[in-house]
């Protein structure tokens, strides 16, 4: 039955893809993404608790639904891995070259997400200490997937290339459009220290910058793996070319929530290992 349901979901996705084109994250720009996030959480949890005895909720929280949704999620992720991804700005069918905007892919992951929610809702009653690893892992995965999806609509990733002495309030978004920043960045220096024994290999790329928001300014150094935070923006050392430095600027309000989800998964995975070892010792 799970195979048929998965197939139906994929076919529905393909039909929507044919009629409406790929999913556009622009459709859920703020505040829509926040409304979708809370609405989904309220609906899925209230239904899974309020209608816990219904056949549909019992099935969604069952192991059969878990294996079914995982199999289909695996199959579509395989398509993502095997087909070269080259998103295009026009309508395509079946849309396998842009799986992250493919309706079938998103609907199958929605099934997986709903299955996790229903399984958690079933397992957590009554709540015991033994169930904590399961809950941590599954709730963490739920949070990371949902926030990753909702947050994608308002992530801003821009780049700025500056030569030493230049400053700018403008960066370039991924789609090539202009992005006006709430501060200006001036590149006051750029260094590439090399390894001591092999002069051909750069050891680090270091940009010295002055950031000015119109009221105050501050000097800082940005290097690979050492970003700088300024309000909602994080600034990363991204690249360099002939005396100029390229900085990556990222604003993503949902990232902290995704990080929390991943931390919960980490704790759950650690518990899984300890529990497996203990179980064997007991045997």
């Amino acid at each position, binding site marked *: 039955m799970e195979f048929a349901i998965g197939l139906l979901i994929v076919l529905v996705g393909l039909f929507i893809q044919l009629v409406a084109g790929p999913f556009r994250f622009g459709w859920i720009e703020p505040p829509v993404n926040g409304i979708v996030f809370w609405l989904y959480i309220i609906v899925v949890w209230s239904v899974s608790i309020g209608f816990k005895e219904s056949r549909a909720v019992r099935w969604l929280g069952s192991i059969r639904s878990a294996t079914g949704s995982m199999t289909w999620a695996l199959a579509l*992720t395989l398509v993502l891995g095997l087909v070269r991804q080259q998103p295009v700005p026009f309508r395509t069918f079946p849309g396998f070259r842009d799986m992250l905007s493919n309706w079938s892919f998103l609907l199958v992951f929605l099934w997986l997400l709903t299955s996790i929610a229903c399984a958690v809702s079933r397992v957590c009653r009554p709540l015991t200490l033994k169930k904590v690893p399961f809950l941590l892992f599954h709730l963490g995965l739920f949070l990371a997937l949902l926030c990753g999806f909702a947050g994608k609509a308002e992530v801003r990733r821009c780049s700025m290339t500056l030569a030493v002495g230049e400053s700018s309030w403008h960066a370039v978004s991924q789609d090539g459009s202009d992005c006006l920043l709430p501060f200006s960045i001036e590149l006051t220096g750029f260094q590439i220290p090399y390894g001591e024994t092999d002069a051909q290999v750069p050891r*680090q790329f270091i940009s010295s910058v002055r950031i000015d928001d119109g009221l105050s300014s501050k000097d800082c150094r940005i290097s690979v793996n050492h970003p700088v935070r300024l309000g909602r923006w994080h600034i990363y050392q991204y690249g360099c070319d002939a005396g100029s430095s390229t900085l990556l600027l990222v604003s993503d309000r949902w990232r902290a929530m995704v990080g929390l989800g991943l931390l919960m998964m980490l704790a759950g995975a650690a518990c899984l290992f300890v529990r497996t070892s203990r179980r064997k010792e007991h045997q």
Partner: protein
Amino acid sequence: MNWSLFPYFSLTALLLWAASAITAWRGARKWTFILSTAGLAVMSAFILGMWISLERPPLRTMGETRLWYAFFLPLVGTVVYGRWKYRWILTFSTMLACVFTLVNLLKPEIHDKTLMPALQSPWFAPHVIVYMFAYAMFGAVTVMALFLLFKRKADNMPAMMSQCDDLVRTGLSFLTIGMLFGAFWANRAWGAYWTWDPKETWAAITWLSYFLYIHLRKQGVKPEAALAVLLVSFVFLQLCWWGINYLPSAQGMSAHTY
């Protein structure tokens, strides 16, 4: 320490591990542990020497990665033997360590001493080492799956499947932790935990596939079907590890090329 000394250290370690595998078959557990530990000490002396002389953990290239694989396989083999008493596990781990060592001996890769900037992160060493553990566990369980599918009679199947489950659970914990370490590192370096880069996509495929095995076992599917999922998962693991270098869909698309 440099690669020119590798043949002496690696061949000594391999001889000790081979002797330990033989004693395991003969049931001389004390000698098994002594010989195996001695082999590990020899290999770890080489790795430590390389670490000091390179002034960084030797974890950057495929050659150095194989070095850790050749170290961790017998280590995990010894731990698994100590805890679960599989006599075959040390033969398996020694054979795999031998393969990785031979590749390094026959094709020594010469590398720059300086670690490139993107790899200079506190997440680097834990990310790779934890993954090595996961790969070793999955390597072991794959051999077990092959054994159960094609050789073993069904008389002791439930117990053997339970041992497979334990190996997968342990490997999956390591795989998840390694993947999450990678996500935290990516966030620090590129401003995103996950970008569906080809390497990340295949990591997700591998991860989903092993989780599918765990859930299928809970569902109570036939052992043969679950074991087949294990074999397919191991193929995905290989594609994720080195196969994507040859996948047309991933050419020039991955940021995970160093």
